[in-house]
């Protein structure tokens, strides 16, 4: 329209964010150093759009009523990891409504699995925990499921603790797209959905999985763990002890153009 010079900018919480055509909202925001919460997005993989932590509102409007009041009509909610940036778009992320919804999503993830952080090797560098801290999640709110999940220690170098799986499919994507091994998949539906390994026995030790696989190094939470490396970094020096998850948003930005 009239803002032709702003063709390659959108607005995130009223701040102009430049983007290159084809970039998603989250890619452009992170590149510009603006953090948008996310769990299933990863800079090196195609977006998955399943966790909904990155949900933003697009093009909310404020209208004046006849009696002089103003009313906000919320724009559409969209996952910023799957929605392409568009020029002139007004995107809201850091607003109370969305922060509340994100807290609720985190709480649902925390009660669905068995997240006992004090005994988890990932504690201190876990994205779920780090995000919960940044959002100020003080309690799980919902009753715990106490679901029964397996621990698979059959692999010589990797421990699989499914108690903490959030079904983000990052390991599945990494194993298929990068390692070309297809070691992982999801099975079941609804609350019985779970991660499975591509072996007749179902055991990770009977697959061709290796600790150097990309899939062995992408899990955002404490499921795919390297044996003999637990609790190596002392309390106080771990990733999110140092900086909150939302500091240095560029660390999550795509390294090069996504295909």
């Amino acid at each position: 329209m009239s803002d032709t010079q702003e063709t390659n900018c959108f607005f995130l919480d009223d701040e102009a964010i430049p983007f290159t055509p084809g970039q998603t909202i989250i890619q452009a925001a992170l590149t510009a150093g603006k953090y948008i919460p996310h769990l299933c997005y990863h800079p090196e993989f195609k977006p998955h759009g399943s966790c909904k932590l990155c949900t933003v509102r697009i093009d909310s409007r404020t209208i004046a009523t006849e009696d002089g009041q103003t009313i906000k009509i919320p724009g559409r909610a969209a996952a910023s990891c799957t929605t392409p940036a568009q020029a002139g778009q007004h995107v809201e992320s850091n607003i109370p409504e969305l922060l509340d919804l994100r807290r609720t999503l985190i709480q649902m993830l925390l009660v669905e699995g068995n997240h006992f952080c004090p005994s988890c090797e990932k504690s201190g560098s876990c994205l779920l925990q780090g995000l919960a801290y940044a959002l100020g999640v003080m309690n799980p709110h919902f009753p715990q499921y106490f679901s029964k999940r397996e621990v698979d220690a059959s692999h010589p170098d990797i421990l699989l603790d499914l108690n903490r799986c959030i079904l983000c499919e990052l390991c599945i994507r990494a194993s298929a797209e990068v390692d070309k091994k297809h070691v992982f998949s999801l099975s079941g539906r609804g609350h019985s959905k779970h991660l499975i390994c591509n072996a007749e026995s179902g055991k990770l030790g009977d697959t061709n999985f290796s600790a150097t696989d990309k899939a062995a190094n992408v899990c955002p939470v404490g499921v795919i763990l390297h044996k003999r490396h637990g609790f190596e970094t002392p309390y106080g020096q771990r990733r999110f002890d140092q900086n909150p998850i939302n500091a240095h948003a560029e660390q999550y930005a795509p390294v090069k153009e996504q295909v």
Partner: protein
Amino acid sequence: MNAAAPAVKPKLLVATTSLAGCFGCHMSLLDIDERLLDLIDLVAFDRSPITDIKHCSPHCDVGIIEGGVCNAENVHVLHEFRKNCKILIAIGACAINGGLPAQRNSLDIGDILAAVYALPGRGVQVPNDPEIPLLLNAVHPLHEVVKIDYFLPGCPPSGDAIWKFLTDLLAGRTPSLGHGLIHYD
């Protein structure tokens, strides 16, 4: 009468207890160190391991509870706190999601007792003295049993986190911890 009243605020009455916890949160409360002196200017302790008072007075202002609920006695104590305290705070991982004790929840309670009380050559002898509270089949966080007003996570929360939380609360603010103080471990 009002005109003669001294301008000293009455101390808040605080009760504390440990249910299925390890007393680590209480140790951390002592870790606020010399600030304990500031604290006791503002609060008086009622039922608590610190005072050894056995039951809550009827009008406690704040109840601080460590540990989840793992046996019948825990349920009774928790109800006593809810009945007598205006504000209940769940402190620590165990109070908030069951914590370490809740890791038994995926196992059958009968199997656990049989494994723990199997004596070599003498079979299984589970203690059954009526004084011993009966175990629940699963460990539960406090908010699954009574309404909890505030949650202070950590395993345990640091002395600094406890201090920030309590001073916020005593000043009438919603407690907020922020980076470095909010911890689940």
